[in-house]
């Protein structure tokens, strides 16, 4: 049924689950979890190299062995300048025009600085980047991001790492309704497979998560659970769910019900 697939900037994908690569107990478990998630895209970052440890080199060879696309992020950047410079550095190292653009505006919630985000997105899009902005569910900001050249939007479900699920399902639904043809990804805040299924049932094109898998007791099993949930949610969305109603409606036929002619004591 889901033969339409998903397209980000002209790249067709079968998987609707994007996973982060941080916080796993070990590189081996990361590799198993990515496989179990059937992810085709993983997020990565750039950090300072200490030299002797060759941590960056070891990590990069592990990711290349996974055979997946990478979506580098600008995690932790707090200004437009930092985000733009980080994106430029990521494009060279990872050899991709894709960038998950984060401009963080507030420490407690790690919520996007949407003003800086729009500004950075415009600069990067003009420079040939294909921007995946980590944003809120705000419609006006979404319009500005599209105007800046973004062709994908990634609103948060809840604050990064919080595992709270979809804090504003109504807002996410409104965003979906307003932009029926823009690929939308719920990024951040997903805690359980049911949260991911809920996002997919809203008609979101994909979900991006990291902590919920990496910090689970069994990351590989959780990755599989998320893959199933995303698939189930997507299929449920495509199958056109019923509308909820306030009162009961019997599912078993009423016609032919026995004893209807007998007075009830």
């Amino acid at each position, binding site marked *: 049924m889901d033969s339409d697939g998903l397209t980000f900037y002209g790249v067709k994908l079968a998987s609707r689950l994007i996973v*982060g*690569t*941080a*916080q*796993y107990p070990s590189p081996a478990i*990361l590799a198993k979890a990515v496989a179990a998630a059937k992810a085709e895209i993983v*997020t*990565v*970052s*750039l*950090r*300072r*190299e*200490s*030299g002797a440890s*060759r*941590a*960056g*080199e070891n*990590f*990069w060879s592990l*990711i290349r062995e996974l055979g997946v696309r990478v979506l*580098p*992020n600008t*995690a932790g950047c707090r200004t437009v*300048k*930092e985000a733009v*410079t*980080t994106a*430029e*550095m*990521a494009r*060279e*190292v*990872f050899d991709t025009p894709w960038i998950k653009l984060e401009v963080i505006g507030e420490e407690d919630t790690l919520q996007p600085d949407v003003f800086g985000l729009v500004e950075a997105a415009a600069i990067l899009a003009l420079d040939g980047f294909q921007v995946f902005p980590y944003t809120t569910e705000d419609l006006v900001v979404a319009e500005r991001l599209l105007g800046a050249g973004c062709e994908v939007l990634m609103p948060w479900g809840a604050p*990064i*790492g919080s595992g709270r699920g979809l804090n504003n399902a109504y807002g996410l639904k409104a965003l979906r309704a307003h932009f029926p043809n823009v690929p939308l990804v719920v990024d951040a805040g997903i805690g359980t497979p049911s949260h991911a299924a809920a996002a997919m049932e809203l008609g979101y094109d994909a979900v991006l998560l*990291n*902590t919920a898998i990496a910090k689970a007791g069994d990351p590989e099993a959780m990755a599989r659970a998320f893959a199933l949930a995303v698939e189930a949610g997507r299929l449920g969305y495509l199958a056109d769910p019923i509308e909820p109603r306030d009162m009961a409606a019997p599912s078993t036929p009423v016609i032919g019900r026995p004893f209807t002619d007998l007075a009830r004591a």
Partner: protein
Amino acid sequence: MRIQVNGEARDVAATTLAALLRELDFEDLSVATALNQSFVRKSDRHQTRLKEGDAVEILTPRQGG
């Protein structure tokens, strides 16, 4: 010459960014560089001269969410 490399003060002999990477043994690694918060392409490292007090960032791939 004293410069900042990844936030730490270092006394280095190198006078270009390319020479700095050689000096610090980063030459064969997948790194991206920035000088004073501006990106410097790999191909521009040879002609990028360093001066006292410069801040250099040398970044490599890492886990990310």
